[in-house]
């Protein structure tokens, strides 16, 4: 019917080639300068935390009573505190506290929260009612107060702070998982799996959970910043790591008393906190944009 002339120089217009999802992810993720900046900061931070003993010029616990409350100088770039300890070294070591608390608390909150949310969403009914009521009650409490109470309950110390923070951060994960579970379990492939005799656990772990990764990862990165801020607040109040241990919030608190004489003692750790939280937030934004820009505005 239609004559197809082989010598035609004009070919069919083709659809533009599909870019692989992987490449697209990297292209979007690295498209913004701040995201790259954040990533760099996080890498530097991790290296600093791991190699702190090698990087820090002084032992953060070592007191030098001949040189207390000194201003920034060539020997002590950020000065010393009331017991002569080098501020810069303490900040470097403080990065360990912040990172550990941040990651572990989030991990704990995510693990517990996701399990609870998954169970509540999947089984529904009274399980859902009970679990979500508890989560709501938890959510009603200001995070700091809750963490404070739990920390007071369990006593000071790094582990307990982490648990306290972790518990206070459970609700967002639980709700996220619950919402996802509720929607996903309506899908036909879940019904199919059920009719084939798959156990509940199998369905939850193999079908529902993997579909939740993108928003979950974004949530985790976003909340690391919140966790670090909360930890700083707690150590500022004197809960958790306190001197001689090095924690940024505690250092701010210490410096507060000597604000007139050595303001750098308070300023420097705060800058560190801001930098780190900013980095994690920017990376979180970048991840969210790269994984699924539709999430923008919801997380």
């Amino acid at each position, binding site marked *: 019917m*239609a004559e197809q*002339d082989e010598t*035609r120089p*004009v070919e*069919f217009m083709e659809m533009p080639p599909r870019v692989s999802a992987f490449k697209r992810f990297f292209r979007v993720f690295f498209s913004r300068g701040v995201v790259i900046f954040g990533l760099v900061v996080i890498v530097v931070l991790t290296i600093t935390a791991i190699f702190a003993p090698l990087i820090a010029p002084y032992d953060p616990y070592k007191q030098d009573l001949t040189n207390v409350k000194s201003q920034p100088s060539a020997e002590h770039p950020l000065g010393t505190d009331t017991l002569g300890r080098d501020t810069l070294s303490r900040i470097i070591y403080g990065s360990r506290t912040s990172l550990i608390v941040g990651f572990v608390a989030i991990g704990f909150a995510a693990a517990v929260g996701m399990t609870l949310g998954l169970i509540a969403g999947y089984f529904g009914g009274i399980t859902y009612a009970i679990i979500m009521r508890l989560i709501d009650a938890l959510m009603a409490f200001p995070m700091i107060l809750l963490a404070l109470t739990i920390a007071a309950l369990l006593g000071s110390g790094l582990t307990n702070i982490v648990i306290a923070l972790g518990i206070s951060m459970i609700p967002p994960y639980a709700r996220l998982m619950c919402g996802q579970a509720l929607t996903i379990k309506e899908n036909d492939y879940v019904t199919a799996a059920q009719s084939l005799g798959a156990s509940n656990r199998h369905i939850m772990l193999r079908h529902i959970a993997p579909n939740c990764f993108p928003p979950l990862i974004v949530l985790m990165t976003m909340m690391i910043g919140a966790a670090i801020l909360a930890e700083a607040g707690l150590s500022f109040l004197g809960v958790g790591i306190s001197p001689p241990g090095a924690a940024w919030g505690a250092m701010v608190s210490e410096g507060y008393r000597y604000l007139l004489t050595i303001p750098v003692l308070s300023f420097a750790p705060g800058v560190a906190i801001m930098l780190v939280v900013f980095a994690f937030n920017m990376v979180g934004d970048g991840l969210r944009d790269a994984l699924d820009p539709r999430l923008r505005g919801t997380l």
Partner: protein
Amino acid sequence: MSVLLEVRNLKTHFKTESGLVKAVDGISYHIDEQEIVGLVGESGCGKSVSQLSVMQLIPTPGEIASGEVIFEGQDLLKFKSGGAEMRSIRGAKIAMIFQEPMTSLNPVLTIGRQLTETLELHLSMDREASREQAIELLKLVGIPSAESRVEDYPHQFSGGMRQRVMIAMALSCDPRILIADEPTTALDVTTQAQLLELMKDLVDRFRASLIIVTHNLGVVARYAQRIYVMYAGRIVEEGTTKDIFAHPLHPYTIGLLKCVPRLDEEPDKKLVPIVGLPPNLVNMPPTCAFLPRCPYSSGICRQKHWPELRQIHDNHYIACYADIQEKQGESITK
């Protein structure tokens, strides 16, 4: 009847990541008073963009590259898109209704409010008068219990009802031209018919002109007096409805008509689709855009640029180098 709106050589371009998309690449058309004109083409051919250009409602990254839109003796494109002159025309002299009734109305405002705000703006009516008028308008488009419904929200109306409200909103200030961009595509067939009848009836009553933008040939066949066929951002054929259906002369139009099933054909006659895919509008070659899919192409088509519209006979123009009448020697309709 005199010319109401004349568009000359309109070009609208979009700057995208992949390149420059010439969504509208130099179209010219006109509409007279009290006329119904159809603008036909498949998705992506630029028909919606052309109408949005007339209203200067093109979102970034698009921009009107060149052209003139002459209305009431002035070139609308010379006005600033957000300026007072353009605003006094939109909704008042030229009104537009869109394809998706489900999302085209603001969910948090009552239907009444969305009607009265145009009345207050363009006709300077006060609250009570505009409310009364809104109720009258709802009755006009066939919404039952208009007095109570005027306080309802869009989600309390069905799709067909919402489109009627859109029609009411568009006609509320007695515009000279109503542009309907795929007004019935999202609705079921019965509602489609009702709505089209309503629009024709109201447009006649208001003595306004109507441009129907659609991909559905059946719609224009019944209601339009003249038709423009668009492909890849340009007009490829224009003429009276009768003429175009009886003697389509552009290969694309012929192809379109061959795809439409007809009641008076033998039942086992196959529908003939147009081979190939619509063109990618980025970086188009200078030759005719329909060339890859055209069964009537020849050497000229490959060498020369996209053909200009040329007159075949009275009011019938095509943009094609082939002489179809010669090649075919048959007509579509019996």
